[in-house]
């Protein structure tokens, strides 16, 4: 594999850190400040895109920043998986920035400068995780994400927000120090390196005096330490973190934070342990069933949530486990599906959160039960919501279908019939918690009691006056991401190519 030396990954990370300075300085002038955010977001995305051709050509970009101690480097490596994640996150940052501006201004939020600063820091760190060449670098950025998102989650500074944020911090920081760092110590001790390897660090030193029990213990520690992936039973920080402002929930909890979690899980599975090794130890199957459990249980809990954001949160927990499940199948199609789901779920879920935020801004409603007939009031928002929900459920022609398709093929390849059942059941459950919202929004009358099946048609003349959408910036962003979810079905080319490259490289082409 050809290696290209380039500092581009560093630039991609640094852009938003530098932007932090500008944002801080221009804090008193909101327009300039927001311009800085957007400019940084666009610049970051273009840097990421500029690396794409190199990666698609089968090359790898490497850049070593500095060595802290022998064996502990901060270095970056852009491979197919990294750029895949970076593309998703940096693109959605642009959209979210626009959305945020609409959101915080229309609600007249306090401490807006702090908000944009930490947003930028969190994104830098996300890029850092995406481009890490070793587990140490990953760990650093993983922690930076946790610390920098704390002020975002605690943004409202109400006792409730502080409580949620504290829970968030305890879960994420606590487990990463107690378990992930422990696992890193063990890995370094056993292997003498933390550098990600295509076939897995431990796979490379198989049979060199490392016992199975040690490997299993390390694996469990890694999984327990990567709480951002919200694998049950360490998931309860995610609903608690929903106290955050909606754009934060949208980007961080549908994309940056949780996806970093699953991204690290994927890295650990593929690059620290390796597909072959996990298959030999039977850990892949164990993880797959663990993930299945989370998928089903979280979906069932989601059914019972009346708060829209809480329902979305449990849906996220369930969907994240799809990604873990896919990679745990350890087959090429499973991995492809898993990786595809990172981007597909990102687009779908961010749209849903955007919608929830738009509904809140326009009507101050947060409960599912209050949404009857809201489709007439906010047609664009609810159409986007419907598209995204359909994508989540996994029905063509929306993107979500693709990943589910690959996951099912992966399950067949792995010979795990029960997994197929899990996927089917969860699809039904997904439909169970999303479709009622869609139905209520479009077909129920806002005034209970006055049921008229033709209400929508009979009121057409008045519809114009009834439309009370959220600010244009917000609606535009959520429409964009919904269209994205739709387009990904028809032209998934770049992402699919990357996903297949990943699957091929880690399974050694078998």
């Amino acid at each position: 594999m050809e290696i290209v030396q380039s500092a581009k990954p560093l630039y991609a990370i640094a852009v938003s850190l530098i932007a932090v300075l500008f944002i801080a300085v221009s804090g008193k002038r909101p327009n300039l400040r927001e311009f800085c955010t957007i400019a940084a977001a666009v610049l970051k995305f273009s840097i990421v895109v500029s690396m794409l051709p190199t990666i698609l050509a089968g090359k790898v970009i490497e850049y070593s920043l500095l060595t802290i101690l022998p064996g502990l480097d901060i270095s970056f490596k852009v491979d197919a998986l990294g750029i895949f994640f970076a593309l998703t996150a940096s693109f959605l940052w642009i959209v979210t920035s626009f959305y945020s501006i609409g959101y915080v201004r229309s609600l007249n939020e306090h401490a807006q400068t702090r908000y944009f600063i930490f947003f930028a820091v969190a994104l830098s760190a996300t890029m850092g995780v995406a481009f890490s060449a070793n587990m140490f670098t990953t760990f650093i950025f993983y922690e930076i994400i946790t610390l920098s998102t704390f002020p975002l989650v605690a943004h409202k500074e109400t006792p409730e927000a502080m409580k949620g944020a504290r829970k968030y911090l305890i879960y994420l920081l606590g487990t990463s120090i107690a378990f992930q760092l422990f696992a890193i110590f063990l890995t370094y001790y056993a292997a003498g390196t933390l550098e990600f390897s295509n076939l897995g660090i431990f796979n490379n030193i198989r049979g060199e005096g490392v016992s199975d029990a040690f490997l299993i213990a390390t694996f469990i520690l890694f999984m327990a330490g990567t709480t951002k992936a919200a694998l049950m039973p360490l998931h309860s920080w995610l609903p608690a973190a929903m106290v955050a402002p909606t754009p934060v929930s949208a980007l961080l909890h549908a994309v940056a934070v949780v996806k970093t979690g699953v991204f690290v899980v994927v890295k650990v599975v593929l690059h620290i342990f390796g597909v072959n090794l996990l298959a030999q130890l039977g850990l892949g199957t164990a993880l797959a069933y663990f993930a299945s459990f989370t998928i089903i249980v979280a979906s069932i809990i989601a059914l019972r949530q009346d708060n829209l954001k809480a329902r979305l949160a449990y849906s996220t927990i369930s969907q994240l486990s799809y990604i873990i499940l896919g990679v745990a199948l350890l087959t090429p199609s499973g991995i492809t599906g898993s990786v595809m789901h990172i981007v597909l779920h990102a687009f779908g879920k961010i749209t849903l959160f955007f919608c929830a935020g738009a509904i809140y801004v326009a009507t101050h409603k947060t409960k599912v039960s209050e949404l009857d007939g809201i489709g007439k009031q906010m047609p664009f928002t609810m159409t986007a919501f419907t598209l995204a929900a359909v994508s989540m459920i996994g029905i063509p022609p929306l993107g979500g279908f693709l990943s589910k398709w690959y996951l099912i093929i992966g399950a067949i390849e792995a010979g795990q019939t029960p997994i197929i059942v899990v996927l089917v059941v969860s699809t039904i459950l997904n439909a169970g918690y999303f479709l009622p919202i869609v139905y209520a929004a479009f077909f129920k009358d806002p005034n209970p009691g006055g049921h008229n099946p033709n209400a929508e048609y009979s009121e057409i003349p008045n519809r114009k006056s009834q439309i009370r959408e959220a600010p244009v910036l917000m609606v535009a962003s959520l429409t964009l991401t919904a269209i994205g979810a739709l387009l990904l079905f028809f032209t998934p080319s770049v992402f699919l190519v990357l996903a297949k490259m990943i699957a091929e490289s880690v399974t050694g082409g078998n």
Partner: protein
Amino acid sequence: MAVTFVSFLISFALLNRVLNTGRISYWLGGWQPPWGIEYVLDYLNVFILLIVSFIAFIVSLYARRSVEKEIAEHKITTFYSVYMLFIAGLMGMTLTGDLFNLYVFIEISSLAAYTLIAVGRKRDALMASYNYLILGTIAATFILLGIGYLYMVTGTLNMADLRERLPALYESNVVLTAFAFFTVGLSLKLALFPLHTWLPNAYTHAPSVVSAIMAATSTKVGAYVLLRIMFTVFKVEFYLEVVPVTKILLVLSSVAIIAGSVLAITQTNIKRMLAYSSVGQIGYIVLGAALINQTAMTGSLIHILNHAIMKGALFLVVGAVVYKTDIEDISGLRGMGKKMPYSMAAFTIAALSMIGVPLTVGFVSKWYIAMGALNAGMWYFIPVILLSSLLTAVYFWRIIESIYFKDGETEPRTAENSEIHNPKSTIRNRDDAPLSMLIPTLILAGLCIFFGIFAFLPVSIAEKAAGLLLGGL
């Protein structure tokens, strides 16, 4: 101030010389060792010397304003004289190659320390000082007894000389007793749990400057002396073959790490909290040393430096807060992030470092100690280290949170809401420490990050020193 700066420069020059030429020794009065008093400089104590003189310099830069505020005017001259004496004692302890001379310097620095603590504003300071005086004297007596016993059987007081003569006598009860006296006496001086009881009161009631200098240097020099006695006067074989005292130290230090952190969580006075945190951190230093291997020893030595920097920075910030507001209570720090942004930024950096977040110095020492534990085949110390990191996170995060996220009573929420419309509202309340206090604090905080990223600078010295301790002279 000038004196400390000069001594720092000299130490730095000495470091260069040691790095270039190796061991330096100076024979006081021209008498040849083992008869005369010898001053020895090697990688180990030049490292410690550098820390002591650097911190002394930084603190004396800082001291003027803080001392004016916290100490009665007619005592200030005395204070500085005693302060110099204290530093001189510590440096003497570090440099000497002679056991009795060591005892003399221990007494000099201890007596100076009692005085420094006693000048604190409240009456409690006297009590704390008295308490320390009693325990300190017991410790010194123990050390003196140990020295006496060793002299009795070997007839020499020179450390290098003892090292040669002792192995033949390792089985002797006199030597064992002497060693026991040393260990207990020094553990008291460096406040190893459960002999730490003097420390929290002393740090709490002493003037802030004194807390800073003591936390950053005196326990560190105590740790250094323990290492000297354990690994220079005695040899590693002593622990492996004769007395498994390091096992006891391992247990004690683990308990210290956990107990110190737990006790820190329960405190409401910030100085006292930092003091208990010191108890825990000293545990790290001893733990690293007691694991007896190169990696862990490096971790231990590097932690001496790191903890000096971190704790120094923290105490300096607290001193600045006391200077500005007279607040010592943790609950009083609410909303301080707006009032004293730079000081609080320094506090945050140092606190993150204490937790052991990567890219700060705290991580480097934890990494080495953890790796050392694994190399020694004692993986069960890793949970201890990680657990204490978590506990540390608990007690520091509590503060960081209230610094930044809870507005003080003087500043209602509405002021913040109108931040954009009324830019003056935040500036009006900003009232940070004077520059003479701020700069030293920021230097230390900066070093927390600098040595966290460019860790190889101190680590390369610490590695050599560790090799020296374990591998013989």
